């Protein structure tokens, strides 16, 4: 068996190391460029923009975290612990918002809650014509949109944790004389803590790296400011400094979550595992639960989606469905397909090595690939831009630069499904194949690759979906005449042409829907 390892390892190791360096280089470039900036620039930013941007970013992230915690856990609790008519439908429906990019939700709410919009008109009919709602282009609007869009992260992770914990823990607590409510807070919630923390961490990373929603809602965060600095100034020093702050902030969230998860780790003890019985509901309770879920799903998916359909069917929107529009679809599909393929190809050696030879080198390489988590879109774009300008300027302005930015940004998503699928194959299978006389290459082709195929496809689909929704890097790096659906949505929506933005937005949502079934199958777990 050592033979197998040695033969596989060396070329892989080189590839993995090269990949890791390639992935870390952009981050290093941004850091270096920020640290080498003149102190005057730092001083100028500290005294003018940074306090506001940091406060805004942290405020938004924490308020969204609190709200998603509530929404995610309560919805997960309802669909796992109660039995009522339509439960299974709601179980699926609660994931749908993930197909809706935040900038699409933001522009729909810009219209709905905006000045003179339908909801304000309704409110004025009740409260008098001089009363106004809080503008969605504010902290509250950004919080609402980000919450509605990200709570499914918490919901999904909490739900699968609730389905997987052993109900005997609760029963023991109950038999020791603890009330139902106490059992919930002293047993169940602590057991769920790691999953909830992982969900919240995803939400936090998502919020700090979001560009589309905050720019449409004109809420100044660090990510938005990086984009503005890159497009409004002739040099990228200020953008690098803000990027560095953003990276540090994201890193802080990520490390806190790891630490949290490490501290509270719970194990399934030996003994028989049983799923909890769902509490059957009579119609009054069914009504209450259904209303609650309907409001959440309605606000986060059904209402925006039906508005998009209605807008798409308007004559002015239908007029945009010409050849150019098919071009945008092709550009989107082509670019995302390319990025997903590249991501899988690059991620595979890293994940393979880390699971087969878990020494410090290969694990380090794998961790390097996760750097994309802390590189939000504009930062990844900036990093790639600076890197390519210094090393391979002839590639600037081509599709290659964009694909590299995508891979950098979305590789963690892919690795999350590649890595465990490799870990679950016992090396014994490969070894058995070798003892039966297969060559190393044959073993790979006939044993390993078929076994990891599902993880492979999942990784590809997830990266494809992320890439097709991606906005800031695409805006900054797209080649000439290469607009994508996401770019079109943004261009039209940012000028308040709601109807014209609807067809591409709707298409992004529709493409994303089938992939959600991947997320729902019961075997999905926290990465």
């Amino acid at each position, binding site marked *: 068996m050592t033979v197998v390892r040695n033969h596989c390892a060396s070329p892989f190791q080189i590839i993995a190391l090269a990949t890791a360096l390639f992935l870390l280089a952009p981050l290093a470039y941004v850091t270096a460029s920020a640290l080498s900036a003149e102190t005057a620039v730092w001083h100028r930013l500290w005294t003018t923009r940074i306090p506001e941007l940091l406060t805004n970013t942290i405020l938004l992230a924490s308020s969204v975290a609190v709200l998603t915690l509530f929404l995610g856990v309560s919805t997960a609790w309802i669909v796992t612990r109660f039995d009522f008519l339509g439960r299974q439908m709601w179980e699926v429906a609660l994931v749908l918002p993930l197909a809706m990019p935040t900038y699409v939700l933001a522009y729909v709410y810009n219209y709905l809650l905006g000045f003179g919009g339908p909801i304000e008109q309704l409110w004025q009919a009740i409260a008098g014509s001089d009363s106004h709602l809080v503008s969605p282009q504010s902290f509250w609007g950004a919080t609402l949109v980000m919450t509605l869009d990200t709570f499914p992260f918490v919901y999904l992770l909490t739900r699968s944790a609730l389905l997987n914990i052993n109900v005997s823990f609760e029963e023991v607590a109950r038999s020791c004389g603890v009330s139902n409510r106490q059992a919930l807070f002293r047993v169940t919630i602590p057991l769920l803590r790691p999953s909830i923390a992982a969900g919240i961490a995803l939400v936090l990373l998502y919020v700090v790296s979001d560009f589309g929603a905050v720019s449409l809602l004109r809420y100044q965060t660090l990510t938005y400011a990086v984009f503005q600095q890159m497009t409004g100034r002739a040099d990228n020093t200020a953008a690098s400094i803000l990027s560095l702050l953003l990276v540090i902030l994201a890193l802080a969230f990520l490390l806190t979550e790891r630490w949290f998860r490490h501290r509270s780790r719970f194990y399934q003890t030996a003994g028989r595992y049983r799923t909890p019985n769902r509490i059957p509901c009579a119609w009054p309770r069914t009504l209450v639960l259904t209303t609650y879920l309907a409001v959440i799903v309605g606000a986060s998916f059904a209402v925006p989606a039906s508005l998009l359909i209605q807008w798409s069917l308007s004559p002015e929107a239908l007029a945009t469905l010409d050849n150019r529009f098919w071009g945008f679809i092709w550009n989107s599909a082509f670019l995302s397909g390319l990025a997903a393929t590249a991501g899988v190809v690059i991620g595979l050696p890293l994940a393979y090595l880390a699971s087969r030879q878990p020494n410090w080198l290969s694990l380090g390489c794998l961790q390097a690939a996760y750097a994309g988590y802390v590189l939000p879109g504009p930062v990844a774009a900036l990093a790639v831009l600076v890197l390519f300008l210094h090393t391979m300027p002839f590639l600037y302005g081509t599709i290659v630069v964009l694909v590299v930015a995508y891979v950098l940004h979305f590789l963690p998503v892919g690795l999350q499904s590649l890595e465990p699928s490799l870990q679950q194959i016992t090396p014994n299978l490969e070894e058995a194949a070798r003892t039966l006389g297969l060559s190393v290459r044959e073993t790979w082709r006939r044993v390993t690759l078929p076994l990891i195929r599902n993880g492979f496809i*999942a990784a590809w689909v997830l990266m494809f979906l992320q890439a097709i929704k991606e906005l800031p890097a695409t805006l900054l790096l797209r080649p*000439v005449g290469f607009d994508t659906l996401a770019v079109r949505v943004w261009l039209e929506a940012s000028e308040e042409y709601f109807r014209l933005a609807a067809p591409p937005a709707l298409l992004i949502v529709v493409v994303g829907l089938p992939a959600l079934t991947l997320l729902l199958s019961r075997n999905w777990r926290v990465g």
Partner: protein
Amino acid sequence: MWYCSKCSAAGRQPHRRVWVVWFFLALGCLTGVVLPSSAAAAEKLTVYSGRAERLIKPVLDAFTAKTGIPIDLLSSGTTELLNRLKAEGDRSPADLLITNDAGSLELARTAGLLRPIDVEDVNRVIPAPFRAPDNSWIGLSGRFWIIVCNTTMVQPGQVTSLFDLADPHWKGKIAIPSASSEYLQAGISVLRAGVGDERTKQFLIGLRDNAGTQVYQKSSQIVEAVAKGQVAMGIVNHYYVYRHLAAQPSAPLAIVMPDQQEGGVGAIMNVAGVAVLKHTPHFEQAIQLIKFLVGETGQKMFADLDKEYPLNPTVKADSALIDRQSFRPAAIPLTKLAELREPTLQLIEQVGLR
């Protein structure tokens, strides 16, 4: 969506066909990367445009329809495109640059990106103040900074100068463009040249406090906000207001041509312009496009569709617009906008405009 799958290992057959599909997918993608760069059509013009796409695309389409020369258009921010051109250097696919601001064109000229064009047909129709001294760039259409008011919230004569907008009376009632917009930067440069840095700074501080969070990326959003009554007034280029009125004639909008009083700065003017990039292999076609843009057909489109002031004196502006002869523009040459830019940016950051 960071989740992972746990696929069951038992009972899986290798599906070779899937891998074949994957392989060809990857191959197809790779050839796709190579093709667009190598297959740059000989007769095609590539235009980088810092103007809103809906304002320039119809004109370029008309050119294509007339001459049969197809155009690849990249619409983006003007400064962003300048950065891009500098980075691309002589490998740039761009043949022409169109911007919404003369200062940016002048910066491109000083950066050595442009190729002077001395064409009699162009020089004859575009007056000298609207061209670069060496004809590196050519102005196409004029626009003025105006104050757009909601008529239900602002009385006629209540506001006559840009400096009135800094009055605390209008707190929360003013919409302004974002600090990264080139036309805001150009406007502030003109104010600095007209009234000095200190007075401009006081004005900007007042403006910042009055605007609060009402800072917009796009002029059309400002006009929309004023029309809805979300704010009382905003600073925009004039044509956005007329375009809005053309679509919705009943909107309660009025225009104030600011600072026309004795000793006032005058209306702040800027031009949208075009330039040919130094390394273009399509110089002839590029000149053809420029001739079209300054000619009657092109200028008439800028006047009628975009509601700008055509720079070719033989073409009339839209009749809805304030007569060009009835107001006085600020006396700052367009070419000075470039050198004024950097200190302006510093002032903007010092004040902390968003």
